[in-house]
């Protein structure tokens, strides 16, 4: 200890200060912290308080139930399905074993080149060169290479799927409640099939231009049909649903 009775950290003393009543508790240390740590602490306090207030104010029983419990309800039911699935895999493997093609040969190109079926959609997007925009300003030149265009189409599809939760918000869960989004989903699902069919157009006995038109028309038609059907179903369905719902949970 030096004369001013302050602990030194320059190595002159032991640097060990006995804890006394002045030593801040961990709680106090947390409260005193600065910057982001301080903000985090304040937010957590607020969130905890919000939770507590909501629970106290709530007259609803269902506030306790936010979703269907994964354990044990879902897990135990799924175990029964697991045994079914594994049995199915063994039967599939036993009845339709996987054979092997001729060995790789870079000098002979086979008549049919295909990826596995789940990549057909991506393969189909690579063949959309007919839709690659041309600019008359550039003298009919294409803006980008056809294959670059195909790779970008893949990115666009994946990106569109990824941002869905940030576009469609709200608590509606059933397709009838949001016919438009259901129609978008039907469009996507059918498009996955048609673009897959287009990717193997050399195996499909339909003229190529017609197939390309169908690739984009069929999903739109299916989407419109889905929209119309759901819209028509909606009134009666929502009436039933609301009746059951509000009987149990009358509006305040």
């Amino acid at each position, binding site marked *: 200890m030096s004369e001013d009775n302050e602990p030194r950290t320059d190595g002159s003393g032991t640097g060990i200060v006995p804890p006394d009543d002045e030593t801040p508790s961990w709680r106090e240390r947390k409260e005193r912290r600065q910057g982001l740590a301080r903000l985090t602490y304040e937010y957590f306090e607020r969130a905890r308080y919000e939770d507590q207030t909501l629970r106290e104010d709530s007259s609803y*029983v269902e506030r306790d*139930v936010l*979703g269907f419990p*994964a354990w044990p309800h879902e897990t135990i039911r799924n175990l029964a399905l697991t045994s079914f699935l594994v049995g199915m*895999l063994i039967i599939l493997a036993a009845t339709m074993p*996987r054979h*092997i093609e001729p060995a790789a040969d870079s000098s002979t190109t086979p008549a049919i080149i295909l990826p*596995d079926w789940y990549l057909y959609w991506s393969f189909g997007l690579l063949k959309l060169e007919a839709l690659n925009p041309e600019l008359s300003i550039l003298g009919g030149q294409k803006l980008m290479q056809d294959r670059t265009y195909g790779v970008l189409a893949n990115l666009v599809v994946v990106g569109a799927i990824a941002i*869905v939760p940030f576009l469609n918000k709200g608590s*509606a869960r059933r397709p009838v409640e949001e016919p438009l989004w259901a129609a978008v989903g039907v469009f996507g699902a059918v498009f996955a099939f048609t673009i897959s069919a287009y990717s193997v157009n050399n195996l499909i006995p339909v003229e190529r231009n017609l197939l390309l038109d169908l690739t984009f028309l069929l999903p739109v038609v299916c989407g419109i049909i889905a929209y119309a059907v759901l819209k028509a179903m909606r009134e009666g369905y929502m009436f039933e649903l609301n009746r059951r719902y509000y009987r149990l949970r009358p509006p305040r």
Partner: protein
Amino acid sequence: MPAGAAVAAATEVVAVAIEPSDEFDQVGWMEEKELTPVEKGYLFVLIWMDKRFRIVDYLEQLETMYYRINLQMPKSHTEQYNLDNKFWYWYPLYALGSFSAIAYLVAALSGALLGFYYSPSTAAGACNVSNASVAYCTIAGIMTDVNFGFMLRSIHFWSAQVMTAAVFLHMLRVYFTGAYKEPRELNWLIGVVLISLTMGFGYTGYLLPWDQLSFWAGQIGLEMALSIPLAGEWVAQLMFGGFRLTQSTLQRMYILHVFLLPFIVTALIAIHIAIVWVQGIAEPH
């Protein structure tokens, strides 16, 4: 000096010298109790472990977990609002996520067994098949020489197919029941990454036999990589080991398939399922 004071003074001295005091003599405490051999054995092991791992700190957490898994769950949304007729009809679709996870496990097990026999080499002349590489010959060997090898390869193939199909259908189910909405956006994004990686798994696995299908599918992939703007050549060299399909392509696909992707996908599946556990299954309402 009374005996009590002497003992007190002795205790004080001991305490100052930070010797183990009687209070912390757990084995002594155990021995002065009347215990059955089972209790004694249990307590001895517990004390031995606790001295080393300080289990007592984790005991409370274990207790909480014990009660949590034995907990009577609250009424679910479907039960409360009598929606069973709507929900159970679609129930098989709610199992698709589990299906893909289970198929992934089956594929991992059968894949590990296949890995004992497979060799990712394009060197020629390992068997009497024209143009056959070592990779091709090891797979032919699995199918003809190894006991149950043909079956094993078929199980690996079919579990991969079923996993991919289940993942696609799972995504459709999640979309049409609005299960991706708040607070589950993050899990949807993880799902998008997982479905891409699943297809990556399928693609890399498709290339491993190094037969005609593999080779020309590899050619397509290489051209796709090359056509990425700006980074194309770099990506082709990183993922395919050059601008032609060679030994380094096969080796890269092998390492992606058996080392890199399994780690990433397993970790992501664990996070994906953990989030489902925390948030519960989204029911239509």
